[in-house]
């Protein structure tokens, strides 16, 4: 759809309860590049035990824990999207220099979701515009 349109946005849904934030943050970054900044993320916790069964769990994670995880999930995604500053990249053909290491940061430690980072992607159009 993004190839034949230029303005409409695309909202996609992933469950923070079952997905890993590095995978999701990287996918959304790439989708944002492809669509020129037209991607939105609907993050859900999932409320059905049937959802949990699809990911190998006998029961759904308890409500409070699901939302704790979601908060951390969003924090991690945001930090990953911000992990490389838009002007960190030089792509200098002459010298071969790509990025300023000091402007591509690792991630702080968190309770549940340990992600080292940085996200291995160029900052995406939505981030640059915001």
């Amino acid at each position, binding site marked *: 759809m*993004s190839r034949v349109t230029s303005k409409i946005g695309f909202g996609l849904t992933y469950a923070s309860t079952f997905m890993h934030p590095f995978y999701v943050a990287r996918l959304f970054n*790439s989708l944002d590049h492809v669509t*020129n900044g037209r991607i939105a993320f609907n993050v859900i916790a999932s409320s059905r035990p049937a959802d949990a069964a699809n990911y190998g769990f006998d029961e759904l994670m308890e409500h409070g824990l699901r939302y704790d995880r979601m908060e951390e999930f969003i924090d991690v995604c945001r930090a990953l999207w911000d992990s490389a500053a838009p002007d960190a990249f030089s792509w200098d053909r002459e010298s071969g220099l790509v990025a300023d290491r000091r402007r591509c940061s690792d991630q702080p430690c968190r309770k549940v979701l340990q992600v080292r980072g940085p996200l291995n992607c160029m900052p995406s159009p939505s981030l640059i515009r915001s």
Partner: protein
Amino acid sequence: MKKKCIFAFDISYTHLDGRWRMPGSWVGRPIRTRHLRGDRPHLERGCIDMLFFGDGTGIPDTWGGSRDEAVRWGIGWPRHDMSPVIT
């Protein structure tokens, strides 16, 4: 059953390190899949059946036990999720 040979074009990142410096690379241009349209006839005329993309996410630390030089010189980094791009 007749056997069929499938030709896959391997555009994994491991083959592409440093290519961004070559003339004609898209450095500094935004990713737009419509830019790929011009390449489509070439691929199909060349009997390519499939585009293959190997992938990974970790930044290599094989040089001096640190990821610093890999980030600085673009070795194994940055690497986007190419699934939305090649499909």
